[in-house]
């Protein structure tokens, strides 16, 4: 028998196979934080000793339902949550609040933790009931339905209980919360052998590290992992004929973004809200829910309390200087995806791999630069523009024959020079700004200043995309990693520079959104002033939220989601699921 442990005043008790592991877990009551303890146990065990891997019982149903789901949850430690999962957890929580029920004739114990050495399973049985017989009851949200994976889960619970109690169990029940009905499951031989087979399959996946192929069918509709898994996109990239089936996943979050650029403002927490004050005035008092990013610029104070709660909720906090320098961000601790980071470091060690990815980043950048010029040339028909366009095109052809990083950087340098040589032609004559050459730190003229601000804002979003996916942001392929800069973010950024920032700068200048009054010239360089910065932040965020048709999948989505999509594709290439990284090319 395992050890017996009472938690709080609740009358539930738990059997543990090994108390040591459990002690490491923090019992957080099951409120907003959600420690997925079953998975945690497995992760702990993975680290210490391979022989003591125990699978969570709930994973049995997952393997049957979609093995890829199992892989993400258990191997990569994904804890993605959506409304469906949350609803299930809240229902579970409500149940646990009620105490032990003993009616005439039978007694009931809730949330029993059990484990089995033979099957190497561990988990919680929602309810164990006893009348003349003993049997497990599994709670499911939703209404009565036949589902093999649920049956198998109950059967697994029963088999583990049998081992613990030394009694035979012939039936189990599934209780459907919505329709308030139970369904009996008879635990026959075929079901039992299916449990064993499924457990074996689970260990196979863990040991081989193979990523199961996506289901890409109706199952993915309500799946919390779809955002990470990209079932339709992956199967389309692997097999072109499935292109038609791709549709955007409705789970991307168009959360709120809050910029605070008020010298002396104080950002703090009030209840579960963010409260920004300056002197005695309240600037904003906004609920934290659905807040995706907080960007602080200049001398703004933020309270440690707020930082803590923001990190807990997964909201990023970015810091910019008023001069447009990107300082960095606070993000929740790195995601658990160590598998990806190992793959990334491996690729970094190999020169040919580095070159392979670096080439695609440069290809993306140059192609998009050219596209931007071509777009403008449609109306302008300028000789110099045409020259630059053909030059970049001829350089693009040479990319495939490149054998060293240095020659790649050479090509990139030549093209960028050509591009910025003609950049001034793209600014309308009526606009009182001129661009001679690219300069920075400090920018000497307004156009360079704007470009600098824009690239900083882009760094903010790409580095957060890179970290959300679970990369190590400091290991890059094109940008070598010796400057202490987020090299991988800079790599992935290349393809977006022309289409996000350069074109945005041209837009705000040509449309007169930003004009001479928005700049201040100092001895140290040219910068945006207070009103100019705010206008530019807005313009940038609007661009980031702008919808665009994806060139490969033909669906509409905002740029902010494309950053993440590209980072995810890179991850899938590194993990061997996709063959080549394709930069994001606009038409």
């Amino acid at each position: 028998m395992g050890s017996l442990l009472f938690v709080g005043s609740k009358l539930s008790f738990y059997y543990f196979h090994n108390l040591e592991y459990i002690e490491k877990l923090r019992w957080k009551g099951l409120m907003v934080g959600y420690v997925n303890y079953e998975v945690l146990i497995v992760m702990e065990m993975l680290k210490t000793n391979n022989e003591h891997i125990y699978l969570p019982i709930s994973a049995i149903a997952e393997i049957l339902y979609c093995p890829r789901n199992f892989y993400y949850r258990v191997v990569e430690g994904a804890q993605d949550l959506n409304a469906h999962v949350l609803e299930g957890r809240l229902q579970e929580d409500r149940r646990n609040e009620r105490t032990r029920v003993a009616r005439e004739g039978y007694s009931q114990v809730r949330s029993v933790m059990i484990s089995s050495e033979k099957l190497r399973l561990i988990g919680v049985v929602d309810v164990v009931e006893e009348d003349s017989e003993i049997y497990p009851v599994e709670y499911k949200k939703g209404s009565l339905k036949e589902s093999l994976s649920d049956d198998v889960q109950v059967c697994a619970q029963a088999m583990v209980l049998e081992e613990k109690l030394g009694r035979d169990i012939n039936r189990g029940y599934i209780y459907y919360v919505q329709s308030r009905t139970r369904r009996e499951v008879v635990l026959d031989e075929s079901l039992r052998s299916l449990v064993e087979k499924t457990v074996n399959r689970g260990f196979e996946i863990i040991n081989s590290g193979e990523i199961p192929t996506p289901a890409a069918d109706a199952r993915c509709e309500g799946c919390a992992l779809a955002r990470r898994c990209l079932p339709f996109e992956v199967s389309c990239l692997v097999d072109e004929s499935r292109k038609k089936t791709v549709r955007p996943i409705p789970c991307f979050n168009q959360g709120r973004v809050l910029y605070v650029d008020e010298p002396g403002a104080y950002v703090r927490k009030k209840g579960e809200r963010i409260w920004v004050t300056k002197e005695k005035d309240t600037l904003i008092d906004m609920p934290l829910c659905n807040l995706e990013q907080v960007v602080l610029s200049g001398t703004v104070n933020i309270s440690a309390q707020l930082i803590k709660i923001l990190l807990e909720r997964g909201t990023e906090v970015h810091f910019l200087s008023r001069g447009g320098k990107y300082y960095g961000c606070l993000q929740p601790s790195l995601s658990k995806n160590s598998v990806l980071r190992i793959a990334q470091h491996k690729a970094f060690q190999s020169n040919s791999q580095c070159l392979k990815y670096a080439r695609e980043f440069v290809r993306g950048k140059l192609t998009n630069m050219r596209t931007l010029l071509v777009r403008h040339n449609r109306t302008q028909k300028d000789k110099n523009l045409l020259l630059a366009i053909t030059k970049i095109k001829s350089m693009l052809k040479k990319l495939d024959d490149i054998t060293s990083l240095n020659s790649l950087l050479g090509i990139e340098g030549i093209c960028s020079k050509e591009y910025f040589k003609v950049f001034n032609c793209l600014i309308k004559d009526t606009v009182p700004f001129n661009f001679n050459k690219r300069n920075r730190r400090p920018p000497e003229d307004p156009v360079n200043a704007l470009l600098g601000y824009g690239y900083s804002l882009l760094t903010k979003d790409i580095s957060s995309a890179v970290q959300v996916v679970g990369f190590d942001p400091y290991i890059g392929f094109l940008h070598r990693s010796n400057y202490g800069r987020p090299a991988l973010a800079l790599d992935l950024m290349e393809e977006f520079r022309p289409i996000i920032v350069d074109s945005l700068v041209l837009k705000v200048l040509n449309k007169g959104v930003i004009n001479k009054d928005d700049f201040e010239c100092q001895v140290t360089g040219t910068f945006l002033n207070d009103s100019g910065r705010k206008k530019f932040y807005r313009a940038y965020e609007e661009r980031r939220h702008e919808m665009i048709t994806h060139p490969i999948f033909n669906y509409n989505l905002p740029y902010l989601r494309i950053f993440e999509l590209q980072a995810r594709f890179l991850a899938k290439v590194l993990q061997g699921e996709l063959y080549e990284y394709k930069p994001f090319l606009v038409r």
Partner: protein
Amino acid sequence: MKHYIITYDISDDKRRNKIYKLLRDYAVPVQYSVFEARLKDEDYLLLRYKLERLMKRDTDSIIFYRQCIRCQKDILRLGRSGEPFGDGIFIL
């Protein structure tokens, strides 16, 4: 993101206070006893869950009215009233 109008009627002062505070964390008080909010499904579930734990079913009442996009456009606000936070960009 869905739009909700939330109204409540709570008999006990202390509990009303607590519920008011909770609602403020998710929604904007637009009038006495009336809140409005734009919530993701996850936040809606959490709010509902927390409210259910605070309220007393036999004496209190809380109602969520969900508004479709068309109805949101038809909302008419006269005079002085709050407005829920929209989506997107806030620059201070």
